[in-house]
């Protein structure tokens, strides 16, 4: 029997759970835990410069690896700083465990120094939370936290740990719990066979089917099975922003992604479909536009692990609660030896879709000419080419995020890392940092803008400390581009506070941290700057690119319209 203090139990548990890296920032209430981490060397701690970055870095790692990220912060401001990152993970169903120091039990409720009711503060943005009541329960509670975070529909779990629970003087028996059971929590392991059969029958009878798949495919590791299913049927497929990479985007059956700034052909195909097979997607408002005009002729099959996602905004005709991977598998086996009922319909449907594709071919944006300022879109395309489409790509939020999603093509899941649900500016850089530290051999690119980057740029210091070689591509248009776009469209171009005055000299700023920064002012300088940026995979390089501030993201769905109602450029609409 082994006797350990609460703090040592935490360090030991993290080792036994196989956690390699945690992201955090010390403070009074977490000091016993930090001391325990200091006295071991299996679990590496990355000291960030702001707790929000700790959550984004752990989140980036989780999205890239599929495993839960781990964060350690102190009580009060340490914990509240982490809130935005917890909410970001919650909205995108990312597995994460956040260990928060708390003031000692006898002080709770007395407005003690650095006390916050963090369980209360985070209640609406966590999958679950725990408060440790006795040191001896630490191993089991931590196991439950990891189990909840990673299974079913994943999400962040907060564990609040009062300082006296980790006191070095109090020791209790430690056993690593290999398994835990939570009587009220039994995530489904397979879908209802009758419903799946019904769905397959509908697929075979469909004339204008389309797959609509989301982040659930990435989360459940169902990409391979999904690809097999889509190939087997020959149907078109569109993904959500979160589902990018769940099906190879360079494949002919991929229509790209859908919704607010999705591709023309995706939104048109959805609107005209007679069957939508939604898997691991949640019909959110950035996808559906006006739900009362949503896809008027379509029957809807909806597969999701979370029953509350089904029929939340759009009613499903065939709801299937289950993990994407196993449901798709069952669909594939049910399809064996069966044929489409209307064999002639699918080629006709493809002819229609190819017509939509042709309409927009070569009209997506107007490239810059030699000597001119670059267009943000062409920068993304150039980065796509130089990285051969194989980089991990993180983004911040705004126009650059949409352009990155539109012009970088992903053929693999877990490579496109973006804050889709919450839309958190400041996410991209720390997320890239978290990925690079865990996947040092890969190229990690962060597309950002001068607005977003300034929200989390203190992490340059962390990258310096840990030698983290991410590539930061700053699409600098000197304005909060997406805000400005909405102001152009809805507020007669009154640019209320969307102009970022007094930008720093990014080159000097980056150089102050000892990194390389390059400036690109016009078209002709891009290729050489990109060559230099990607020359050494281990080097952090910041590429500051002046891009055209007048550029808008198109297509853009018309507010309150149907899927097909889109602005296609500043002068064209459907």
């Amino acid at each position, binding site marked *: 029997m082994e006797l350990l203090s609460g703090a040592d139990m935490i360090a030991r548990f993290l080792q036994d759970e196989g956690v390699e890296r945690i992201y955090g920032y010390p403070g009074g209430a977490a000091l016993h835990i930090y001391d325990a981490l200091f006295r071991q060397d299996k679990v590496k701690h990355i000291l960030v410069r702001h707790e929000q970055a700790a959550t984004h870095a752990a989140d980036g790692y989780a999205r890239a690896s599929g495993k839960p990220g781990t964060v350690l912060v102190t009580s009060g401001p340490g914990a509240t700083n982490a809130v935005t990152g917890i909410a970001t993970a919650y909205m995108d169903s990312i597995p994460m465990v956040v260990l928060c120091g708390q003031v000692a039990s006898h002080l709770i409720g007395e407005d003690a120094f650095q006390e916050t009711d963090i*369980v*209360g503060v985070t*209640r*609406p943005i966590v*999958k*679950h*939370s725990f*408060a440790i009541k006795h040191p001896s329960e630490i191993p089991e509670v931590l196991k439950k936290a990891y189990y*909840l975070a990673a299974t079913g529909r994943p999400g962040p779990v907060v564990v609040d740990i009062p300082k006296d629970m980790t006191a070095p003087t109090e020791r209790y028996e430690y056993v690593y719990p290999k398994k835990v059971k*939570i*009587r*009220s*929590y039994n995530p489904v392991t397979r879908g209802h066979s009758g419903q799946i059969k019904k769905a397959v029958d509908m697929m075979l009878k469909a004339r204008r089917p389309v797959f609509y798949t989301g982040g659930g495919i990435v989360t459940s590791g169902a990409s391979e099975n999904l690809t097999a299913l889509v190939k087997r049927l020959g149907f078109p497929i569109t993904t959500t922003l979160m589902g990018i990479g769940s099906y190879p985007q360079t494949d002919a059956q991929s229509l790209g992604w859908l919704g607010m700034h999705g591709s023309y052909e995706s939104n048109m195909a959805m609107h005209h479909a007679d069957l939508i097979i939604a898997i691991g997607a949640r019909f959110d408002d950035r996808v559906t536009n006006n739900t009362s005009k949503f896809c008027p002729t379509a029957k809807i099959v909806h597969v999701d692990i*979370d*029953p*509350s996602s089904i*029929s*939340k905004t759009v*009613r499903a005709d065939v709801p299937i609660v289950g993990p994407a991977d196993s449901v798709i598998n069952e669909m594939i086996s049910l399809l064996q030896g069966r044929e489409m009922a209307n064999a002639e319909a699918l080629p006709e449907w493809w002819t229609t879709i190819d017509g939509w594709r042709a309409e927009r071919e070569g009209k997506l944006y107007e490239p810059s000419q030699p000597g001119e300022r670059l267009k943000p879109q062409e920068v993304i395309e150039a980065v796509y080419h130089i990285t051969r489409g194989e980089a991990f790509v993180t983004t911040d939020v705004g126009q650059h995020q949409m352009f990155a999603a539109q012009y970088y093509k992903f053929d693999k899941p877990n490579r496109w890392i973006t804050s889709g649900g919450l839309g958190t500016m400041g996410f991209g850089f720390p997320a890239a940092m978290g990925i690079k530290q865990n996947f040092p051999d890969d190229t990690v690119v962060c597309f950002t803008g001068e607005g977003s980057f300034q929200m989390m740029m203190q992490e340059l210091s962390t990258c310096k400390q840990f030698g983290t070689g991410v590539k930061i591509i700053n699409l600098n248009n000197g304005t909060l581009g997406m805000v400005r776009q909405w102001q152009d469209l809805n507020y007669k171009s009154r640019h209320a506070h969307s102009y970022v005055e007094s930008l720093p000299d990014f080159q000097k700023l980056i150089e102050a941290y000892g990194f390389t920064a390059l400036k690109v002012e016009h078209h002709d300088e891009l290729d050489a700057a990109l060559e230099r940026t990607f020359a050494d995979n281990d080097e952090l390089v910041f590429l500051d690119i002046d891009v055209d501030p007048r550029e808008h993201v198109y297509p853009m769905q018309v507010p309150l319209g149907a899927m097909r109602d889109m602005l296609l450029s500043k002068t064209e609409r459907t």
Partner: protein
Amino acid sequence: MRHIISILLENEPGALSRVVGLFSQRNFNIETLNVAPTEDPSLSRLTVTTEGDDRVIEQITKHLNKLIDVVKLVDLTEGHHIERELMLVKVKALGASRDEVKRTVDIFRAQIVDVTPSVYTVQITGDAGKLDAFVQAMAPIGILEVGRTGVSGISRGDKILSL
């Protein structure tokens, strides 16, 4: 439509706040709320009455089921059920109205549980409609204070809400 949802909840600190928080967070409505321990000390039973169309009620039950602290729940209004609420009312009982109060209490099969020269405290149980009717009948005489427990309920027959 009004629904009565009964929930078996882990008897853990913070569990109640998760349920209540869910309602405000998702813009659902709570009309009454009643919570107490059960015969199993690890479980509380919470009964909530809420308004909503089928779509809203479906979302409420799905989201409640998602809470880790919710062990089991039933929408009692889906089947035959018994619904009870207890109310304590202080009414003015002076002069001629003193008899009037007593008569009304008898009609409603309520009980007077405390007496002063000027006030009767009445205890009444029944469904929410009966309690509303009593309040209405007493209003002209003069209600001084009302305490209601909120609805508690149980399904009729052999159907059981347990682990």
